């Protein structure tokens, strides 16, 4: 048994493929690439693929991470090319590396995630910067999600406004992504008074316990 860690993108049409469907898709891709996927025991054997952190529907990502267990060792150098040849446009393997098989489960190792938020409706940069500063200055931001009160503020690790030389204004944020403490970009946007539907969100990095 060997365990490999794969970093990949999820973009374009694939933004609308949910977490469970992505599992299925990856399993098929592995089968097409003839990787010796390891399966669980039992009545309904499941492939041993685990994805670090579910990406919300509609989000793009430049840096998704998964662990996959294989029955035999394979050449990791040509693995990205082998998988990419059989992945739908929008999914692309960037990196494959060997992981200690006894290392803790990937999901338990995620600390936070960084997002870029592009705005499709014009905004006044200075006004947005003011609102961001205000939000970062306060200590508590009580909100409610699915009828449960929680504090958004401690989940925001970083939030900044970027102004391009072209004049385009966008947001960058790093939010906690620990089990039981996950900040959601759309909640931050909502708190800033930006309509979620007018944005394009891309996850750019997952930060792990090193």
């Amino acid at each position, binding site marked *: 048994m060997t365990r490999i860690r794969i970093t990949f993108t999820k973009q*374009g*049409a*694939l*933004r*609308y*493929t*949910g977490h*469970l*469907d992505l599992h*299925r*898709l990856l*399993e*098929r*891709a*592995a*089968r*097409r690439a003839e990787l010796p996927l390891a*399966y669980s025991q039992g*009545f309904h*054997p499941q492939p041993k693929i685990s994805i670090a952190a579910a990406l919300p*529907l*509609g989000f793009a990502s430049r840096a998704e991470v998964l662990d996959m267990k294989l029955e035999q060792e394979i050449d990791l150098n040509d693995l990205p090319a082998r998988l990419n040849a*059989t*992945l*739908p*446009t*929008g999914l692309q393997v960037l990196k494959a590396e060997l992981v200690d098989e006894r290392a803790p489960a990937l999901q338990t190792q995620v600390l936070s995630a960084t997002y870029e938020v592009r705005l*499709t409706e014009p905004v006044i940069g200075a006004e947005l910067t003011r609102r961001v500063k205000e939000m970062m200055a306060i200590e508590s931001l009580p909100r409610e999600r699915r009828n449960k009160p929680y504090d958004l503020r401690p989940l925001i690790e970083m939030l900044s406004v970027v102004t391009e030389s072209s004049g385009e204004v966008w947001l960058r944020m790093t939010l906690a992504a620990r089990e039981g403490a996950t900040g959601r970009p759309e909640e931050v946007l909502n708190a800033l008074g930006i309509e*979620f*539907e*007018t944005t*394009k969100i891309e996850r750019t990095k997952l930060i792990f316990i090193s």
Partner: protein
Amino acid sequence: MLTPEQIENKLDRILLRVQKPGRYVGGELNSTVKSWDSARTRVALVFPDIYDIGVSNVGLKILYDLINQRDDALAERAYAPWFDMEELMRQNEIPLYALESKQPLACFDLIGISLPYETLYTNALNILDLSGIPVRSLDRDESHPVIIAGGHSTMNPEPMYAFIDAFVIGEGEEAIQDVINTIQDFKAKRKEEGNTLFHLSSFDARTELLHQLSKIQGIYVPRFYEASYLDDGTVAAIEPTLPDVPKIVTKRIVAVLPPPPTKFIVPNIDIVHNRVSVEIMRGCTRGCRFCHAGMITRPIRERSVDEVLEAAEAALKATGFEELALLSLSSSDYTNVLELVTRVGEKFAGKHLKIGLPSLRIESVSIDLMEKLKDSRSGGFTLAPEAATERMRRIINKYISDDDIIETTREIYRRGWTTIKLYFMIGHPSETLEDVQAIAELCKRVLLEGRKVAGMRIKLNVGVSTFVPKSQTPFQWVSCDTPEQIKAKQSLLKREFIRDKNIKLSWTDAEDSFLEAWLSRGDRRLAEVIYTAWMNGAKFDAWFEGRKYQTWMDSFAENGLDPLFYTHRQRRTDEVFPWEHITAAVRKSFLFQDFRQSLEGKIRVDCRLDCFACGILPTFANMRRDNPGDVWKCPDVKSPQSNNPLSVSSMKLPMVGD
């Protein structure tokens, strides 16, 4: 017209508000995205139900591949948006678009709609409307795409005559090429000659193009035919209005099945059938009298075991799917079925693959076949006795004895399957409550006998559908059961099975069957009923969410028609049917003879054993002569080649009433 970029931008704003947005974005592996500008003919293939159902349709997949193999054409796909998406599309003025290029459907040259069953009719209208294309054929002009339709239900195209420009009757593999070529020739000529092309013709450009299409064998252009009616409401005649369109349109077939598609679309979301399907055989020789497919897909043509295996392997490699379905109307009748399953079993053993072999005969050999295909016996085993009394089985020409059923099911349980599914139909001609009672008795016996060999854990699922008489079958003359009869039969079964929690009964709602029944043997006047029903909100008629029985009843009333005329009426023996000018090459006289034999309780054996002269051979004699031997299961045609250079179209076709 919106550009693809504009459509995509609008989509990004609404997609997170609908269920399963992955239905609407394309981008699947094995979909073909060709350059829009370099294709001379752009074809949109539409399955008028949701993506989840349509994407695995094999018929459209065949056409998709064939068209995309041409350098001068492209094919893209579209499906019916679900209620939530349709509402948002209409609100945001997003026209229906094709998944590959996101081009609006209205920008295509040709739209091909698959109509395998009648409950898709309102959706087909809705799709045209969502595309901004006039729903009625006569309201469209040269700027609109040509709308064609095909599929099993179009063996009686008449209820949809007002909405479809041209129907492809029969198999589409070759016909689609002819249609595309004709459109290309016409457009080239039109460019060259401009309006002078129509100097001698009173036709506008669109009508002239359809006129050209009507000359292709198997193409039916309804606007060139007129129906007249007798005082009793039945059809008097359906006649061509032009001298050079065929009086009778004979279905198109391919002599030899072309290589099966292997690059199946791999959806990025979960759908109904995540599988590779390989058609092992087309047609059926069993002659079950209720079976539309069995009558209209003759003759039998098989693929070789090698070809099936190669295709299955290539398709599994191209898709990574976890399921393989070997499709045919009657797997047991495939000549080398034992060799096929043995080799499939060996080849794919231990690959976490589920293999489906549908429509097996009720005999122990079937169990041997299934055993070779299964890694574990956890799944169910499906058999379709259809009826439970000897009398009924003789009437429908599907003869299996109770003893065979008991013996086979007992053996299935004994060998380790824990669930068996038995399919029955109620509403067969002359069926009584006793015949239905027999279904209950037989099922109980199956379970009882099974328990003797496999204990108490075994289960039986009983699926009971309602028979709907179809055009072009021996039962096209019969009346349907009334809703009261159907409900009485269903409650009898529900009562019988309610106490045994190991028997699970499923049935089709009586009202759903009626919609199918009106439309399957309907005439041209039903086009207005469909239109009115659709205008009043009918769509997704096969779905619980779309059920609008009262809307349909109102729409019959509004158009002065009686639904019972179409369903609960025994047809006169000399009745001219609304589909009299369309033939599946199985003669009306043959069907009538078979119907008479049914009334006498006479069985007809498998026609591989004895040719009953259904009409296929005389119609396609030249084709058969050119393709002798095992390719077809019909007898060889040995008579010398006729001098006539034209094959099928010039041959004597079955005449009305012959």
